[in-house]
């Protein structure tokens, strides 16, 4: 392991530009002649559009044009799509209602775009947007998914009677019901997973540039997967053919899932650029982000967990209603199904599982993947249920978990997943030791003397990362394959460019990917450039989400490096008249093992390009590409322990300690991994303690539309974290890595809620555990 190689805490290459204000985010881009777009958005949650009158707006200063949904439809721009087909248990396909980039007949949530104004300045565009007269006929509204399923409720899409998108199941209902009937004990709980707003600090933005000379389109956009954006925009939205559309996602200020999907705005900016003949830039403001960025979570579930007389789980039955909002966003259908129900076995050996999931349209913003996507929902459900069961059974939370841990691998769960490796006991023990679990009684007594209530809670999570074998996801309904691509170009001077289809929006790829190369060839990390986020530079890719950059993206790079290494060795062997099997690469040199003969890396590279002296028949140059398709998911797992103190007079919760013990397999850069865990923990703690999207149930108005009404975790809401890792390498990829980006957000909410319920002695508490709710629950218990 070199000082900049695998396993080293290398400071990030990309930091300098971010720290000096030289980052290039989409809103920082300016091109000659650029104009500004502001969207006219529906103030109603549900209404018919009777007419749109833009006469006055078009006459206002600086206005270039006002375009609406009728023009967009007339120009043949297609509907937004959901890319993962799910079938109901009766075999019928999911019911996809039409989603127009600009609504032309009906609006279905507050913020649904109906027109776009293009003007010389943002202020002029905003003024004119106010002057666009839209005549709406308001319709009745439903925002609650349980209510939306009932008869007589407002109907969002004619395709979906009772607003039901699909009624899907996984697992064995008969076996599960039989086990529950025969159980010694059954724990029953109702679990609500609150709706969240991802809130990347960089608001979404798009800059559409149409070049009539070449009939070519360029789109700068805040995307986690620019290639998929190009594919979808050309294949489904008819914006431009793939070879005439370049999508660039430059520096992106956080995504957390919310920038995976293709939204109306980038399509409209490209189309509007062609219509108006000028480059068109749109930048979201924070209120627009709250209204229109896809939200996360929003599940209502009932759970039955059955135990035998030895406290072994015999069955789990889950019934979930998932709110998908007004339209089906790109990945929305797979989140509450294949990313959720397949993880319901958790870390436990459960012989029978049955999950039923109904997804529902409501007059709210679309809901899609948010950090963890389905896995946080599964973990929260399971770990709250385990805690409740432990209390009912009179066991310690750790004991109940230990009794039920999976201990031999590979392990086939009843819900598709085949866990490859893990050691759940190791994480549990590490976390309990770091948290001084055994000393809690004394700390509780001490807190009691100060009039405070102290509590401790744990959560043992598992997740599935590294999305995923293409044939597997294909058979489950995915519209794309989930491989990754890489190309490694060694320059004539020996410096190296790596083109990757992964996309970095804060995860530090420019450093970790370069570490991989530095480790392999012993070259300085600064001689390696990572190129990503531009469909003209990288041939194809599937982007970054679901912690797939390490397991899938870097594996593709590793595969390309294998090919480069093989050719480099051939060239070096030829130059030194040695056998290629004797060549080793060390510290930037290609050596003949056991001799003092060597060729520096740069000299071999130069030889590849001068081509004066290559092995007979060898092509000049040194550039190799690879596609990597994973053979399985990866399964990071861990144990989180949270300790809190609740003030019984105010209901205020203070986190006094948070311990995370994770198993991420091999680790490329521990510093970056720790940072990923910290960030995930903050989002999970935010969900548990502070965050929640709220709509007025009567009129569908968004009540949490700014940072004044949506509580984001700030520095003094959070503690410093104690994190550690124990590594069982993943056997299914060349690097043995598993993925770490989502763990914190998955494992932390149940640990925190379990801790608060332990402190107040009342198990009935929903997220976010605001002081008001905690106070009420604490007093209800007494």
């Amino acid at each position, binding site marked *: 392991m070199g000082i900049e190689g695998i396993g080293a805490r290398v400071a990030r290459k990309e930091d300098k530009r971010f*720290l000096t204000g030289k980052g290039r985010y989409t809103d920082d881009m300016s091109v000659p002649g650029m104009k500004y777009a502001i969207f006219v958005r529906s103030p109603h949650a549900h209404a018919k559009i009777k007419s749109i009158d833009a006469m006055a707006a078009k006459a206002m200063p600086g206005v270039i044009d006002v375009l609406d949904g009728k023009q967009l439809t007339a120009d043949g721009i297609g509907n937004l799509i959901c890319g993962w087909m799910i079938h109901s248990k009766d075999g019928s396909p999911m019911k996809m209602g039409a989603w127009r980039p600009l609504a032309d007949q009906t609006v279905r949530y507050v913020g649904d775009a109906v027109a776009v104004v293009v003007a010389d300045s943002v202020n002029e565009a905003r003024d004119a947007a106010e002057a666009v007269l839209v005549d709406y006929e308001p319709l009745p509204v439903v925002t609650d998914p349980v209510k939306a399923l009932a008869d007589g409720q407002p109907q969002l899409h004619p395709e979906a009677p009772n607003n039901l998108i699909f009624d899907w199941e996984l697992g064995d209902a008969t076996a599960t019901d039989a086990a529950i009937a025969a159980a010694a004990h059954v724990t029953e709980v109702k679990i609500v997973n609150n709706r969240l707003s991802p809130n990347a600090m960089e608001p979404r933005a798009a800059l559409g540039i149409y070049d009539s000379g070449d009939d070519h389109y360029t789109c700068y956009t805040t995307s986690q997967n620019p290639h998929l954006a190009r594919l979808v925009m050309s294949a489904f939205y008819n914006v431009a053919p793939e070879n005439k559309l370049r999508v660039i996602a430059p520096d992106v200020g956080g995504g957390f899932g919310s920038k995976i999907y293709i939204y109306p705005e980038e399509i409209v900016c490209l189309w509007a650029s062609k219509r108006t003949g000028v480059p068109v830039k749109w930048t979201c403001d924070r209120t627009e982000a709250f209204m229109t960025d896809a939200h996360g979570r929003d599940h209502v579930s009932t759970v039955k967990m059955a135990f035998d007389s030895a406290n072994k789980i015999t069955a789990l039955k889950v019934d979930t209603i998932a709110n998908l909002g007004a339209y089906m966003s790109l990945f929305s259908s797979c989140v509450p199904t294949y990313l959720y129900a397949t993880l319901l076995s958790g870390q436990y050996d459960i012989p029978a599982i049955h999950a039923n999931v109904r997804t529902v349209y409501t007059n709210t913003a679309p809901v899609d993947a948010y950090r963890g996507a389905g896995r946080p929902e599964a973990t929260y459900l399971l770990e709250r249920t385990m805690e409740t069961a432990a209390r009912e059974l009179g066991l310690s939370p750790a004991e109940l978990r230990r009794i039920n841990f999976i201990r031999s691998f590979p392990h086939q769960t009843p819900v598709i997943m085949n866990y490859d490796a893990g050691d759940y006991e190791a994480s549990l023990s590490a976390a309990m030791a770091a948290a001084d679990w055994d000393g809690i009684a004394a700390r509780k007594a001490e807190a009691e003397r100060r009039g405070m209530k102290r509590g401790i809670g744990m959560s043992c999570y598992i997740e599935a990362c590294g999305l995923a074998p293409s044939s597997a996801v294909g058979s489950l309904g995915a519209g794309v394959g989930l491989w990754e691509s890489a190309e490694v170009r060694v320059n004539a001077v020996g410096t190296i460019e790596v083109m990757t289809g992964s996309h970095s929006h804060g995860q530090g790829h420019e450093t970790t990917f370069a570490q991989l190369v530095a480790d392999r060839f012993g070259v300085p990390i600064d001689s390696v450039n990572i190129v990503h986020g531009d469909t003209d530079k990288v041939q194809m890719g599937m982007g970054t989400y679901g912690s797939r950059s390490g397991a899938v993206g870097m594996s593709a790079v590793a595969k390309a490096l294998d090919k480069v290494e093989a050719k480099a060795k051939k060239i070096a062997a030829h130059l030194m008249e040695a056998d290629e099997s004797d060549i080793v690469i060390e510290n930037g040199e290609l050596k003949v093992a056991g001799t003092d003969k060597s060729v520096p890396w740069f000299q071999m590279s130069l030889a590849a390009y001068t081509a004066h002296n290559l092995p007979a028949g060898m092509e000049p140059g040194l550039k190799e590409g690879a596609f990597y398709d994973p053979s399985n998911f990866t399964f990071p797992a861990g144990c989180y322990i949270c300790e809190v103190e609740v003030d019984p007079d105010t209901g205020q919760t203070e986190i006094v300690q948070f311990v995370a013990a994770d198993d991420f397999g091999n680790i490329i850069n521990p510093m970056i991994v720790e940072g990923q865990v910290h*960030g995930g923990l903050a989002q999970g703690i935010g969900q548990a303690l502070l965050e929640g999207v709220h709509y007025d149930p009567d009129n569908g108005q968004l009540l949490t539309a700014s940072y004044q009404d949506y509580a984001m975790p700030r520095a003094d809401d959070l503690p410093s974290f104690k994190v550690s890792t124990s590594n069982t390498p993943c056997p299914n990829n060349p690097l043995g890595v598993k993925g770490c980006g989502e763990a914190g957000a998955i494992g932390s909410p149940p640990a925190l809620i379990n801790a608060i319920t332990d402190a107040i002695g009342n198990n009935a508490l929903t997220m976010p555990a605001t002081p008001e709710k905690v106070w009420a629950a604490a007093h209800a218990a007494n």
Partner: protein
Amino acid sequence: MAKITMTVNGRQVSGTCDDRTLLVHFIRENLGLTGTHVGCETSQCGACVIHMDGLSVKSCSILAVQAAGSSITTIEGLAKDGELHPVQAAFKAHHGLQCGFCTPGMVMTAVDMIARHGSKLDEATVRAELEGNICRCTGYHNIVKAILAAATEMGGVRQAAE
């Protein structure tokens, strides 16, 4: 429309803008200094923090015309001669940034915080004074570490010089 002049990062600049233009937009659009970011425009996130006449301010909550005649430092003015400011260096060394979007505002807030408290800063004070800056990526753990490390280092340097 107003014509205004101010000193930005030690250079006198002037420009014409709408009366309602916020300082952050003047800095970004008129001056092309895009390091100062907009995360909310409602004074909640701190992505737009700059220094104005020696005080850290949110440039989204002040009009450009109000800043006429003032002296402003933005993130672009912090590093000198290609050398990172100690606070910038500490953020890099302690991994106090991920996507980098909140970072300019965080760094400007931190510089001001350290100027006021010096090496006497402690974790509780840093957390309390970061109240006006949101980071969605780091969980603040490493930001707090970086600020404390920079405070110690800068305090030490100052003492040595005194």
